[in-house]
């Protein structure tokens, strides 16, 4: 049957009943089901063990995209020229690819569960960071009324599944996170160390007494207060209980956080996940920063090496804590960087057309999604075939260029274990990239 894509979607959506419903359940695009590109028998429900997420994110616009798998072998693309960043062949699962040397030296067991998605972020300014976090307005609040940040979306959906203390995400860096419209405070590892310094002896007994008194006080106050006051009391009392419930071994981990370096952000993140505080934690791993004037791309080199090392350290820490199958790691920056050689003392500029989201986790099928093509005077992410994950030039993929960010987010949501039905409620537009999702 030769059905145009447009007609197929128009006639098949729900009106055809079975196909539409099956698509909704499995999360597989109707197009793929009808076209026979996915064996219906294989289209199992892949809502497996839900994951927590460590998201490394920044408004710096790091050149993460310039030296990752999928960025090599394209004429005119200028990868980092340093010898320590030499193009090196590597395997991502069954997929052979090329990347800068630091990536190739990562232990294979991590690479075998990592995908690199080439997409666009659509914005070119640092202040647009929060817009990128809302997927340009496509990430929706739970009520469907107004935009929300993707961290907030994922956190609120995952919290009941992962059973965390709070639904709000948490930032251990400069990430400007908000939750359902409310700005969230960033907490640094050094602050956590102070906040959770353990008590003992009579000090602990006195604290228990105080808690009892505050509880009694709250009960009395709630008899008289306004809605706003009662809401505040409830929330603050709950917050206090959450503090008290923290296990001592976890408090000891906080005591070891000496500074706010990326490594200690990693340690703090792992501890917070062990505490089941929140399903989504944001940290910052520099990969070259806002490197307009990075002559010789030296800073890019140094921070890619250290950044990959930190990323690997995170995965190792998760392993040590027994969390490797319960936590997924991904990144989302405000934009990528230009890929052409600007020569002389110049580094790389902002590039709204190309960003790479890496996702590493249990439900990830390793590989490279999408690709890059000439765009304006530089390069941008191609459209994507949602089934194969191949980049399709000329915007002819079923995931068009302007929906690649949303689709990357859908894919992230799926590998976190969220059902497609929920993702469709919370992310408008885009579709999951099936080649990156394990189990298909």
């Amino acid at each position, binding site marked *: 049957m030769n059905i145009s894509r447009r007609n197929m979607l128009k006639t098949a959506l729900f009106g055809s009943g079975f196909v539409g419903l099956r698509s909704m359940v499995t999360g597989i695009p109707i197009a793929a089901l009808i076209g026979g590109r996915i064996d219906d028998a294989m289209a199992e429900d892949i809502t497996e063990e839900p994951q927590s997420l460590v998201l490394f994110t920044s408004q710096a616009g790091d050149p993460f995209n310039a030296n990752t798998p999928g960025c090599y072998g394209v004429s005119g693309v200028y990868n980092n020229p340093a010898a320590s960043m030499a193009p090196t062949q590597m395997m991502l699962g069954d997929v052979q690819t090329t990347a800068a040397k630091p990536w190739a030296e990562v232990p294979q067991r991590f690479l075998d569960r990592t995908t690199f998605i080439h997409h666009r972020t659509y914005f070119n300014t640092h202040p647009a960071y929060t817009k990128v976090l809302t997927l340009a307005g496509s990430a929706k609040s739970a009520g469907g009324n107004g935009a929300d940040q993707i961290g907030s979306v994922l956190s609120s959906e995952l919290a009941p599944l992962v059973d965390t203390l709070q639904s709000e995400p948490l930032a251990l860096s400069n990430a400007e996170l908000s939750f359902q419209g409310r700005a969230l*405070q960033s907490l640094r590892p050094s602050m956590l160390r102070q906040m959770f310094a353990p008590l003992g002896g009579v000090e602990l007994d006195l604290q228990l007494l*105080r808690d009892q008194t505050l509880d009694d006080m709250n009960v009395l106050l709630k008899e008289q207060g306004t809605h706003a006051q009662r809401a*505040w009391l409830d929330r603050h009392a709950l917050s206090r*209980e959450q503090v008290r419930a923290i296990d001592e071994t976890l408090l000891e981990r906080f005591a070891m956080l000496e500074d706010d370096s990326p490594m200690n952000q990693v340690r703090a993140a792992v501890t917070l996940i062990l505490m089941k505080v929140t399903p989504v934690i944001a940290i910052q791993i520099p990969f070259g920063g806002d490197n307009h004037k990075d002559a010789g791309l030296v800073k890019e080199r140094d921070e890619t090496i250290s950044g990959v090392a930190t990323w690997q350290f995170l995965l190792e820490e998760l392993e040590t804590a027994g969390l490797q199958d319960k936590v997924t790691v991904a990144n989302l920056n405000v934009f990528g960087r230009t890929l052409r050689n600007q020569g002389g003392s110049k580094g790389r500029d902002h590039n709204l057309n190309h960003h790479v989201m890496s996702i590493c986790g249990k439900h990830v099928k390793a590989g490279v999604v999408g690709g890059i093509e000439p765009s304006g005077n530089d390069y941008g992410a191609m459209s994507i075939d949602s089934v194969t994950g191949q980049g399709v030039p000329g915007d002819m993929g079923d995931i068009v260029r302007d929906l690649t960010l949303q689709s990357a987010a859908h894919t992230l949501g799926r590998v976190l274990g969220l059902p497609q039905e929920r993702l469709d409620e919370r992310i408008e537009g885009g579709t999951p990239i099936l080649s990156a999702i394990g189990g298909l």
Partner: protein
Amino acid sequence: MLRRSLRSVSGSSLALLLAVPGCYSGLSASPEADGLSAGEAGDEEGDEEGDEAGEDAGDDAGDDGAGDDDGGEPVAPFQPSDPESYARKVKLLLTGEPVSEVELDAIRTDPESLQDLVRGWTETDAFRVKMLDFFTVTFHQEQITKANIVSQLRGDDATGNFNPRNELYTNLTESFARTAWGIVEQGRPFTEVATTRRWMMTTAMMSFLVAADDDPTKGQQHTFYHNSPPAGMGAGSSVAQQVANRAWYVPSNCVDPSYTSNRRFFVLPALMGRLPAAGCDNFDANAVMNNGDFSDWREVELVTLGPDDDKTPYWDIPALRNAATLGLEIPRTGFFSTPAFLAKWRSNEDNSFRVTTNQALIVALGQSFDDEDGTLPLDESGLSDDHADPTTVCYGCHKNLDPMRDFFLKEFDPDFYSALDEKADVQPSFSFFGEVSEGEDLTDFGQAIAAHPFFAGAWVQKLCFLANSQECNPDDPEFERIREGFIASGYDFRELVIELFSSPLVTGAARTMTHDTNEFLVSINRKAHMCHTLETRLSMTGLCNGNNNVAQAAPEDAWSRGSATPFQPATSSLFYAATMDAFCDRVAKAVVDEADSPLQSTDMEGSLRFLVEVVMDLPPGDSRHYMARTALEDHVEDATLLTQNNRIVLESAFTLACTSPFFTSVGY
């Protein structure tokens, strides 16, 4: 048995409970989102260096309002606040001081009397201190670092050995807040914050401004000597001789044979008694600055020098010390040209002051550049070629932004805000949301901002954020009444505060349109209010100081680049609760039984009264006074069974008071 129930005190039969933690029965399984619409402001504290380069300002103008990122939750029905609660809220926000019995009685008897009380509160020194904090943050003056200040002297980013006295950073941070306060105190139109050339400065700051006024690549040689003076100089050389010869006597042989430099980022710290030589990092000498030069705050008028006018050199400390005017080539004007503002909003060659311009508009007018602003500029001079195509999305903002950034481009190096050798040949103009004017320099930019119709509403809104941790609805007739009153008063800021803080917009005493769209909040007590309140009530300072102070973990008000909405976390969290536990415990140990402290374990009765009436701000007439007093007394009695150390007992009572809803919230 250790515990007594407060319920038993309130009239039920006496019951003793085991000390079981977490017995609060009023909890829901997970807190509901409170459906706030605080916008998407973010936290930019910390490392700014990655934010500096190459961005264009103003893309997210439409992203700042409540409607862009609201929670989608329905607003809870409005319930009016009681006088006890709103009196405490208003006085805490304005002064940090507790409400007195007399004041509470007055408000209960006649709620209209709140306005007179607020007027009185705005005349206190505590209010002045509050406003200084508010102005420092709201005018974006608070993020000076060594790197972003030395670049204004040096013309590049390397800090080298720039090592001025720390008081210089404090001076630069505080200057404009003090200037703004002076405008308020003198009853001058608040629009002068954009036009004033009468700045509060110290001698040290004046020296810095002069040093930053010249091309950083040019400088005259200075010699610091001890045993090897230049010809004609010696240990007994007068100050005038030293100034005239740029040869400075150092009363220590740490400079032998001598130290010579023409680089002002070395010379200026040296004039503060700091030379980059072992043993020379803190010396006093008659010709260099003394402690008083960092605290001699006074109003100084900035005067623009012509090309042939003499400039008082930055090293002529005696002349600067006695000067009431300061001649500069750069026509610094208003909040947006202070070293502190420029340091916070770094630009670079690519960005070319667009961020600086946008932030100036956000501060003064509460509005960022927006591609939907249809105002046509006078011309397109300064419009960069990259954004000159009217069919691109960039054009909508850049057509207005680029000619306006020329006000800064004319005077400063775009990478470092250091002075230019010659003014750039550009023709700036102002065009923004219906207002268009031509201009020559920064003073014209300031005039255009001051005259803009957005000014009044922007400052009403800023105070709404201060008061309510969220915006007021600008369509609310009450908001409009206050805005118009501000204009009619001649932009009298004190009158604006009085009107707004006695308005139901802030008190919640009656319903307004704002309460229908933005659920009335009880907020956490964020860091600035928390610290100031505690210091005021305890008559102590420095309770929150120090980088390692756990108070630094408390949420605070901040402004992000490009956002007209401040970052203001209002809801409690696990981390807020943990912070308050640790902070209050720390303060308890610093306060109890200290000399002159009102909290003495030898006077438990008086200390408990102080905790209830002052720290918790519950005077005897407050309906919650008795409950709180009983709670503390019972706690002391129970604690005494655990330890005979009265100091520890009182510390625990303090922590209880400090972590109670009456201190951890604003609006209870």
